[in-house]
Every structure is written in C-alpha cells, then in structure tokens.
C-alpha cells in the first residue's frame, strides 16, 4: 500500500531504466522502497481481436510478431493448438526441427538476458561479451530459417524449411563455440565479485511467494519450483530427448542467473541430440483451410516461462477466439514482492531479472498517426514499405549481409 508520508516516484512509461514501456509507481522512505505498483498496457496492439478477423495462416504471421525475441514460442504454441483441433499429425522431422529452432531461440534469449543483466548492474563488459557471442546463434538462426528473429519456420501441419547436412555441421560448430563461452560465464558467475555482490540477496522471491503468485520459467525455477512445460507436458520432440530441469533455491537475482546459465548448457545438449536423432521423412502435411469446430489449450516453455494459447475454432477458415497468456504477465505480479523493502538502485536489475517482455504481454489496437493533426489509420503494408524505404535510404544491402553470413561458416 502506498502511504501518504512516503515520497512517490513515477517510473515510466518512458524511462531510461526501462527497455519497454511500462509504468511503475514507487513509494520511498529514504532509499528504501516501501510500496510499488505497476501499470501495463502500453504495448497493446489488438492482436487477439485481429486474429479473429484473419485466416489461421494470416494469424500465424501476426502471432509470430507478438514478440521479437521469442517469436518461435508464440507461433509454435499457436500452431500446436490448431493442429490439435484439426487432428493433424505433424511429421516427426517437423517436430524435431521445431525443437531445434526452439532451443536455438532459448540460447539467443538467455544470452541476450545475461547481457542486459550485466548492463543493469554497470558491468558492460559482460554485455559486450555476451552480445558478441550471441551473434553466433543469431547467424545460425538466419542460415536455418532466413531470418534472425521472426523466423517464419512454422506452418500449420509442420515446418517450411528442411535442414541440410551442411547446416547440421554449422549448427554443431556454432554450439561448440557457445558452450565454451557459456562455461566461461558460469565460472564468472561463481567467482566474479561484482556479480556476486550485486546479485546475491537482491530481488528475493521466496518459494512460498513464487508458488502463491504462480511465477513461471526461470523466475519460478530460481525459487525452487522445478516446473518446465517441456518435461511436465511434453510437446514437439521433447518426450524423446534427455534433459534436466534446472532449478535452484537461491530465490534471488543470482539464482535466476544460475538457472539461465544451467539452461544454456542443457540447450546445447538438446541441440546436439536433435541433430543426432532427427528422423528422415516429410517436414509438412497438408492442412485444411477450414478448421473444424473445437477448442484447444496449447502450452510451450518459452525462454521466459510457460506460454499459453487458447484457440477456439468454429468450422470456418478464421478462428472464433485466440487468447495468449505470455510468461511475463504471469511473472510481473511477483515484481512488487521482489521490490518490497529493497533499495531504489536495485530496481532496474530486479525488473530485468524476470526478463520482462511487454510486447508479449500487451497485445491490442490499430495505430493512428496523429502527426500534423491528421488522423490516419496506418496499415501493416504502409509500415512495411516505410521500413524497407528507411533501410534503402541508408544503403543497407541484405545481399551483402547474406554473403557475410555464408563466409562465416
């Protein structure tokens, strides 16, 4: 509860300490936070409503754009629900390819987080190192799917691109490099005084509170909740793969760091298993345009935790309802607990430690351009064309980038 004698500081929706728009109201007594509340919704874009007015395939492309970091998580979760309703049996090879992209995505997301965490505690060398290393996995994703972020690999009934022998070798080479780097970061996390002093005992979320507030993913697993959808409710090819659910009882930001580092090592092992075990066969089965009436709840372990999609079909080519519950929405409610009685200076790292993604969390309404007092609805096509023109004006040549990527391997 915010009390009248305390100093109240609004942080956000636009603030240098925040990477995306959200708004916190912090009550302070001296340097200590006595109460905090959060207001979300600034990234609401209307995706759930928009899906109801689009075909399943169009919706898939939109769903992939919920998030620029864990785009594969959302698209996989969505197609799984549709495939369940339509009774589509996805070929084994496609399931393995979905798993491969999922784990590569987890690697890039966790490395990204490690860099952000470094930055938030003033350890920018860590940011530079991890983001340099992350380029290896970004390049792998680009060679496998054609894109660094929104991969567009999923389609209803399977995947859109197969993997070649050369690509498999490239993946294994890249994973070897990243595993070496991650071992170094694990050593760093164990011994580096800056990290230990700045992360231990910060942003504490007890096991009981994490359970009560339904924390998911690394946030929950760092508070001793050993839950992972890949293990508890296996999808894609996880039931056939061997991996450990990493959980610790540190209950602080340091614990969240250890969990993510441990998960990176598990992901390297999973990628190798996928490359070794991937079965031959088709990557896609034909899906009907009209999906029979029915409903399904699909779950997926995104890098930030459980992603949940509910889809209801009504027999037409458009869904009747699409609901998305991204992991950040489940975790944001723990932040107030983590901030309780902590110093204001800890706030950036505490928020960053749940690895928040507000684009995932907020999802609604068409964009209005009010520039020069003119109100126009900006459609996707205009945004796309503007984007292409913007890069063209600045001489960005994607052909050259592709050549550079090929050279790397």
């Amino acid at each position, binding site marked *: 509860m915010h009390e009248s004698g305390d100093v109240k500081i609004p942080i956000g929706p636009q603030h240098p300490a925040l990477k995306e728009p959200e708004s916190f109201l912090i009550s302070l007594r001296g340097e200590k936070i006595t109460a905090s*509340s*959060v*207001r*979300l*919704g600034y990234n*609401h874009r*209307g995706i*759930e*409503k*928009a899906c109801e*007015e689009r075909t399943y395939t169009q919706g898939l492309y939109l769903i992939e754009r919920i998030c620029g970091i864990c785009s594969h998580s959302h698209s996989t979760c969505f197609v799984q629900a549709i495939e*369940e309703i339509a009774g589509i049996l996805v070929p084994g090879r496609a399931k393995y390819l979905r798993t491969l992209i999922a784990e590569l995505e987890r690697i890039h997301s966790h490395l990204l987080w490690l860099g952000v965490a470094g930055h938030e505690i003033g350890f920018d060398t860590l940011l530079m190192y991890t983001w340099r290393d992350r380029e290896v996995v970004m390049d792998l994703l680009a060679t496998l799917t054609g894109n660094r972020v929104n991969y567009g690999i999923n389609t209803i009934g399977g995947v859109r691109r197969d993997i070649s022998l050369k690509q498999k070798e490239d993946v294994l080479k890249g994973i070897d490099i990243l595993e070496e780097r991650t071992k170094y970061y694990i050593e760093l996390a164990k011994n580096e005084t800056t990290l230990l002093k700045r992360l231990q005992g910060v942003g504490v979320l007890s096991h009981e509170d994490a*359970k*009560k*507030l*339904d924390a998911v993913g690394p946030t929950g697993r760092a508070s001793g909740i050993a*839950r*992972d*959808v890949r293990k*508890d*409710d296996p999808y894609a090819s996880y039931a056939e793969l061997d991996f450990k659910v990493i959980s610790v009882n540190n209950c602080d930001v340091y614990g969240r760091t250890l969990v993510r580092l441990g998960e990176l090592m598990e992901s390297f092992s999973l990628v190798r298993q996928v490359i070794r075990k991937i079965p031959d066969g088709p990557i896609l089965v034909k899906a009907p345009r009209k999906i029979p009436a029915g*409903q*399904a*709840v699909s*779950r997926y372990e995104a890098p930030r935790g*459980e992603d*949940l999609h*509910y889809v*209801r079909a009504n027999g037409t080519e458009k869904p*009747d*309802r699409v*609901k998305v*519950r991204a992991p950040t*929405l*489940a975790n*944001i*409610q723990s932040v107030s607990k983590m901030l309780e009685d902590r110093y204001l200076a800890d706030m950036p790292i505490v928020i960053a430690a749940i690895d928040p993604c507000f684009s995932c969390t*907020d*999802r*609604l*309404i*068409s964009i*209005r351009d009010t520039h020069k007092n003119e*109100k126009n*609805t900006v459609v996707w096509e205009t945004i796309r064309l503007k984007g292409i023109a913007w890069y063209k004006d600045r001489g960005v040549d994607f052909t050259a980038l592709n050549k550079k990527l090929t050279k790397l391997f």
Partner: protein
Amino acid sequence: MSEEKIKQELEDKFVYLKDAVTIQRKGRIFVQVPLSKFEEVFVYAVKQMHFLALSAITGSDRVEYFEVIYHLNQEGKILLNLCVSLNKEDPQVKSVIAYCPSADIYERELMDLLGIKVSGLAQGHRYPLTDDWPKGEYPLRKDWKAHTHHEEAQNA
C-alpha cells in the same frame, strides 16, 4: 492423479457435473460448471484437488452468452479448464483472487475487453486499455469492430 480419477472425483463429489466433464486428451480436462455452483467447484479444485496454480483466465463472446474459462494446473502437469457461461444482460462473476492472487490481472482483462463485471476485485489500474478508452466499448465483443471505432474517433 490421472485424468480419469480427476473426472471421477469431480462427478462423485458434484452430481450436477455428471456428463459435464470431458477429457480432451492427456493433460487436458474441460468442465462445464453452472454459474451458481462455480465457486464451490473452484474452491474444491484448488483446495482439495491441489490445482493450486492459475495459468490464465480466458473470456470470450459466444454471441448468445459470454464464456469464462479458468485454466488451473496441478504441479504444472494437468490443465483443468473450468468453463462458466454468463448471460449477456448482466455478465458477472465473482473474483477468485482470494484463492489465486495471480487472478488480478486476468480479471481486469475480462472487465476491460469484454465488459464482464468481476465482483470482489479491489480498485486499481485498468488493464490493458488506456485510461481514456471510451466507456462502454469492449473490443473483444463480437459486435465491436475496429473500423467502426476509428470512424467514430475521427468524427469526434
């Protein structure tokens, strides 16, 4: 506890749930709960059957009525989806925040996007719409169309 046992327990405990429990597949149970009995089924599922975690609440407009689905899970494994139907004239549900504190944001979403009243929810920020969002406009209702909204906003 297996899906079959959960179904059996629910049907034995609540006679009105006979034929209302469907096992869709491994790990997915859907239950159609009468609105008047919702609280007792919800509390029993949480307290006695240990469906302690609330994954999400989904509200939707089924044209003739509104539907609210509470997605509960047991140790992260089995999802128990409790579905209730609300009449369109006065759509109202009781807040479950006393049993699941994480329900807060999902219940605010029900209020904002569908105009479903949630009784027992403390005052707080709205979510996810803006503070100046026009009163009485609920985007996830089937009769709400984005283009109509924009035309009205432009004419205002």
